[in-house]
């Protein structure tokens, strides 16, 4: 009788740690983005109100007079609206990334419990591509590229958090709104790397749904 292949046995004996329940994560992310959106709007409104109050009390110089909304000048009003919503999106995105960093750091603690120290940054990136991806999203990264100078590009052809995003208004709109939902995973990666000692930045990019790439920049001295 043929002995079973070694890695099949070892996966049975020591199954990879699954940290995240896919369905729960989806529901959580949906609610988290909505809640953060409302919370950011409230925080922004409160900050504006404080500014206005201080300006009225004379503590601050009065804010520059708001551009008169010329009803026939459509360009200025649309840029005003777009700037406002970009700022809002940015604040939600940074909060999601901060949450992800906490989560990623703790995942790394749990996953690195039994393994040896990381020899260099490439080793750490490989850990992210295999063990972190498997424990969070049940698959491995599809493509890893590097320029050997601290920049790594991880590509996932069917990234789980954005696999179901589809909008009534078409592909472009879905793509635009999906950018917010990869902020948390980017934070998880960044937090995990920083907990094991590699502090860098992670920038997610979506070209076509559901393909997603993460560009990781680590400092060069390791």
């Amino acid at each position, binding site marked *: 009788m043929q002995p079973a292949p070694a890695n099949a046995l070892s996966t049975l004996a020591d199954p990879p740690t699954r940290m995240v329940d896919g369905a729960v994560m989806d529901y959580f992310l949906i609610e988290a983005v909505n809640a953060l959106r409302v919370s950011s709007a409230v925080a922004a409104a409160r900050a504006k109100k404080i500014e206005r109050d201080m300006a009225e009390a004379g503590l601050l110089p009065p804010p520059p007079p708001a551009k008169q909304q010329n009803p026939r000048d459509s360009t200025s009003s649309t840029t005003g609206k777009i700037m406002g919503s970009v700022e809002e999106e940015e604040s939600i995105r940074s909060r999601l990334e901060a949450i992800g960093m906490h989560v990623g750091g703790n995942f790394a603690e749990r996953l690195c419990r039994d393994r040896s120290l990381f020899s260099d940054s490439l080793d750490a990136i490989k850990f992210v591509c295999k063990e972190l991806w498997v424990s969070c999203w049940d698959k491995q990264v599809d493509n890893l590229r590097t320029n050997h100078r601290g920049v790594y590009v991880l590509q996932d052809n069917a990234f789980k958090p954005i696999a*179901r995003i*589809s909008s*009534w208004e078409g592909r472009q709109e879905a793509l635009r709104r999906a950018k917010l939902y990869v902020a948390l995973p980017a934070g998880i990666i960044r937090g995990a790397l920083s907990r094991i000692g590699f502090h860098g930045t992670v920038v997610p990019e979506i070209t076509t749904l559901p393909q997603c790439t993460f560009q990781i920049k680590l400092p060069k001295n390791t």
Partner: protein
Amino acid sequence: MTIYSLYIYDRHCACVYYQDWHRTKQPKRAGEGGILNAVSQAVSPLTPDGAAPTPSAFTSPRNTLSSTTGLVVAIGEDPPVQDPVEHARSSTLPFDEEAKLVYGVILSLRNMVKKLSGRDEQFTSYRTSTYRLHLYETVSGYKFVMLSDAATEGLRFVLRQIYNGPFLDFVVRNPLVPMDSQVQGIDNDYFRASIDRLIRGLSVFN
């Protein structure tokens, strides 16, 4: 043996989704404010400047019966069947009235069955000489209504499959679809495509 159309209603009694495969007469577009935003490209009211709403990226390859403007008349239909709702009026109803009519029918029948036999009985389907209507209702109040030809049995199971598959995947777990909103339907590309795949893969479909 074939399947005509599918309606989905939410617990606020509004039609949130519509899809059809065979219809003798194309559905007439709803009037302004008649139906919710994202129900179906083919039946949404035209925008005020007269342009049709942007066509969704999904067009079924074998769907010769409808275009995005909804003007193509069905050709090559086998036994000539009249869409059941058309019998009510001589001219075509706009879609929102048609949806309300279907909802009214199932609501009344459901209430009547409950009164006659008690709370445990459920209305599942009714049949006329030309068509059969199947209803599957979820605990959360979503009602899946499917119209098929009169010979088809047991489509309740298919409706349940639609709920467990495409609906859970691409409506419940889709961040961009507002579930319990009173202003928007649940139409989106992936949902439409996966329902279409499921229905066309059935043995009872044509």
